[in-house]
Each structure stands twice: as C-alpha cells, then as structure tokens.
C-alpha cells in the first residue's frame, strides 16, 4: 500500500516537473521569438536609415517636410507696350508707344514648408521664392534671379518673418493681372492671432517705410522710421462668405532728408497716418460669388496700388503733408461649369493731393486710375490652369494728362 502511494506520488511529482519544464521551454521559445523579431526590426530600421542617408536629413525625426511650387507662363500683348499692370505703369498720352508682346515664366514659384509638433502646437515654416529678383534680357537666355517672397514661422498664434501684411485685402479677385487698387504688401512682421469658430483677430507689428513726394514729383524714402506700422484686423467667416476689416496706424517720419534736387531739408518732421481696409466675399448662386474691397486712409502710401499714391508730400523745409487716398473694386466670379469660370472686375483708385505743395512736375504725380478686367479660366487638369484675360486701364495725373492701355493675357499654370 505504502509503495503504491510512493509510486503514485512520484508519478504525480514527475508530471508536475514535466509540466514545469514544458512551460519553461515555451517561455524560452517565446523569449527567443521576441528577440528574433526585435533583431529583425532593428536590422530593417538600420537598412531604412542607410537608404535615407544621403537623400534628406531633417533636424527632427518628427518634422514633416513639403516641397511644391508652380510653373507659370504668361504671354502679354499690350497696346501701347506694357507688361505689368499697375497704376503708375499706364502710359500717358504723350508717352504712347507701339504695341508689344512679351512672354515670361518669372512668376513661377518654388516653396519648402515644414511642420514639427511641439508642446505649443504645430510649428510651421515656409520659405517661398519666385523669379522677379532682377531683369534678365530677352536676347539669349532670359535669366532672372530668384526673389524672396515668404520666409516665416508660425506657432500657436504667433507669426514671425516675412509674409503678407495684415492690411492686405483679405479677399482678392480671381484675375491674372493686378487689380488697380491692390492693397498688397509683403514685409517682415510679428503678428499675434486669435481664432474661434467664426472669427479671427490679428494684431500685427510690421516693418515701417515712409514714402514722400517732393516738389519735383520724385518719390523719396527717407529711411528715418523708428516705430513699426501697427495693424489690427478682424476676420469673419459667416455662412454667407468671408469678410475682414483691417485698421492701420503708422508714423510717417523724415529727418533732414535729401531731396531730389540734392538739397537737404532743414528740419525733421513726423505725422500720424492711418488706413482702413474692408474686403468681403459674398456667395450668390451655386459656386458664384461677388467680391469687393474698399479702402480709405491718410498716409496709406505704399499700402495702396504699389505706392502709386505716396503717403504724403515733403516741402523744402522738411514739413510733411499727408495725402488722402482711397480705392475700391468689385468683382463677380461665375462658374460656367465645374472646370470653367470667369471673373468680371471693376476697380478705381485715387488721391486727394494737396496740390499747393506741387510747384512743378505735376505729370509725375498720380491723381486717379481705373480698370476693367474680364477673364475665362479652364482647369484642364487638377491644379492646372489655362486662362485668358482682357484688361482696360486708365490713368490721370495732376497736370490733367491722361493715358490708357489695353492688355490681353494668356496664362498656363500648374501647381505641383
């Protein structure tokens, strides 16, 4: 009896021991399998790393890099000759020249952007260039230097670097050529933004640059600015479209400036300039919309129409008299089909100069300009655009002289 018990107990212990051994073996296999997986994973990572080496190395492995740009070919026929369309470039009657045709790919662009997650949210950067850096010639190779357009970073509500001014028209018309009252400036700035579902607020401190006209009609840049241009903007995103109101305050200053006749002013002076810009897009039928932009200010200067209307006048002594300027445009965009659309736009810009300051060269100082633009665009392929546009522009200067221009544009563009 006792022997039997001892035998059974032995068998039982043996089984227990065998089970434990099997379990141990299983765990060992599992450990080995995991180790093998780990080794294979490490090898794969090493292989991938070695493959990536030499191609692209980023400062952070969490950074996402994007590269893009566009190819843009513009063909422009001008009567009389003219390529870029802006107030000051509309020739006066005495300067009439023959028609001219120009082709250019200078508006092609290249950009690199990055996105890196941080504890304050995504840190985004953008560097963008085009090829308006310097004029080449059309004789042989049409070489044009690159030009910096944007170089800035954004994190949280902070924007720092060079990019579009907050005073710019928030809604722009869909045209190939510039609109005659364009409020468009790109410059170094520091901007704080706050967003909610339907509203956005911006407070922007931007690079100042005074432009003044002297008695000879020459536009001077005294380079004596000490206070940044300050712009506050409210953006609104209702169900009916988009709208924004921007208000700007700026100091216009000069300190013993050299005039165009090489004499120097005997004193320094400064004045407070301001501007208001309201732009909106209102949806109408289907995908159609109507867009408008209107601005008014005293001392707006370079913010309107590419400095066609200087911020103010400077007399021989150095006194500054700011000038009022204003403009507006309205455009209707219609979709003929999903890939065909047109815009008809009408624009006007003008100034209320203090003409007593002008002693001569009144034909050099712009009084007003207007434009009519009509186009047809076709999205032949996604991100590809073919378009034609007709432009009629008129300009008047303070001497009473007028001029006009007709432009026809053909564009091929592809965003990649």
């Amino acid at each position: 009896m006792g022997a039997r018990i001892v035998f059974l107990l032995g068998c039982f212990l043996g089984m227990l021991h065998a089970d434990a051994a099997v379990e141990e073996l299983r765990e060992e296999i599992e450990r080995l399998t995991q180790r093998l997986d780990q080794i294979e994973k490490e090898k794969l990572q090493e292989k991938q790393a070695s493959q990536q080496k030499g191609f692209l190395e980023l400062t952070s492995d969490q950074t996402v890099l994007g590269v893009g740009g566009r190819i843009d070919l513009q063909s422009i026929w001008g009567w009389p000759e003219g390529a870029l369309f802006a107030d000051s470039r509309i020739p006066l009657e005495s300067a009439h020249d023959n028609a001219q045709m120009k082709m250019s790919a200078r508006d092609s662009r290249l950009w690199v952007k990055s996105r890196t997650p941080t504890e304050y949210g995504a840190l985004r950067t953008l560097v963008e260039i085009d090829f308006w850096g310097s004029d080449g010639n059309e004789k042989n190779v049409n070489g044009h230097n690159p030009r910096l357009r944007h170089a800035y970073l954004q994190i949280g509500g902070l924007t720092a670097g060079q990019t579009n001014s907050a005073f710019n028209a928030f809604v722009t018309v869909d045209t190939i050529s510039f609109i005659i009252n364009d409020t468009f400036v790109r410059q170094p700035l520091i901007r704080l933004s706050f967003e909610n579902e339907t509203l956005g607020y911006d407070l922007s401190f931007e690079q100042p640059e005074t432009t003044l006209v002297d008695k000879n009609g020459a536009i001077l840049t005294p380079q004596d600015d000490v206070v940044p241009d300050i712009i506050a903007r409210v953006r609104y995103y209702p169900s009916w479209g988009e709208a924004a109101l921007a208000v700007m305050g700026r100091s216009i200053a000069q300190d013993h400036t050299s005039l165009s006749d090489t004499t120097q002013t005997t004193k320094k002076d400064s004045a407070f300039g301001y501007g208001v810009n309201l732009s909106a897009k209102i949806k109408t039928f289907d995908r159609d919309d109507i867009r408008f932009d209107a601005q008014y200010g005293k001392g707006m200067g370079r913010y309107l129409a590419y400095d066609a209307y200087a911020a103010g006048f400077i007399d021989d002594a150095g006194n500054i008299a700011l000038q009022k300027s204003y403009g507006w445009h309205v455009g209707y965009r219609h979709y003929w089909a999903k890939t065909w659309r047109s815009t008809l736009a009408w624009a006007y810009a003008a100034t209320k100069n203090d003409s007593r300051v002008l002693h001569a060269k009144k034909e050099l100082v712009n009084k007003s300009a207007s434009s009519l633009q009509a186009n047809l665009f076709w999205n032949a392929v996604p991100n590809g655009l073919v378009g034609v546009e007709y432009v009629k522009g008129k300009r008047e200067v303070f001497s009473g002289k007028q001029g006009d221009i007709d432009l026809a544009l053909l564009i091929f563009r592809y965003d990649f």
Partner: protein
Amino acid sequence: MVKKIFLACSVMACLGGCYREYASNGGEVTYDVRDHKLQSTTLKELMLRLDVSISDNYKSELEKEDTRVRYALRLSSDVQKVADRLKEMAHKDFNKRLSNEDARIYNESVERLENCAHAIEKVAKNYEVEHLDSKIANLKQSCVACHSRFGVAYGR
C-alpha cells in the same frame, strides 16, 4: 476636385436621404427635415471650399493651409451635429421601429460617424492637411455603409 465634389454630393445625398425617408415614413415626424437640408447645404459648401488650391493667387501656402483647416474644423463640427441629431432620433423612438440587430448596427453607424468627425478634427488641429482627403473618404464610406443598410429599407 471632381472627386471631392463627388464625395460631397455622396455624403449629402446619403444624409439627406436618411432624414427625408424617415420623415416620410408616416407617424409622428420627430426630426425637422428642413433643418437637415440646411445642414446638408452647409456641409456641401464646406466640402467645396476645402478646394482652394489655385484660385487664390495672393495667399501663401500656409495661408491656404489655414483656410483648409478652418473649413475642415467647421465640417467636423457640422458632422458632429448631424451625429448628435441621429442619436437624438434613436433615443426618441427611431430604435423602437428597428429590430435589435438593426438598432445595434444603427448605433454603431452613428458612433462611426462621430469617430469620423473626431478624426477630421484631430487632423485639422494638427495641420496634417495631407491626410484630410483620406479622412473625408472615410466619412463618405461611413455614410454609404449606413445607408446601404437603412436607406433602402426605410426609403419609401
């Protein structure tokens, strides 16, 4: 762009069909169909506005991203509202008309819709705009799956 418009129309058609069918199913109408039509129109416009690739010559790439993110967040918010209303329908009396199995699938579909809204919101908040199209495609799939189950059965 054509793809996006197709997606937008599909999503709207699906959502629109659901409410309209339920409302015309006789008995007490517990959901305002006009509300839904307005929601559908808003969503469709938002989907269209997400395509701002080349029509704005002045905006920088990051500004275009900002625009897409803003519209994506609004889209997410509106889809969430649609999901909330679908839940409301279920809590009132809609589930009573369904078999247990259909009620389970319906609730799962609403949950999937919510997940899609959250996924779009997450991608937008992180500025991962390159993933937006795939998240919107998921949204479309979610709607199509639900309506292939319920749209026909309750669509008389």
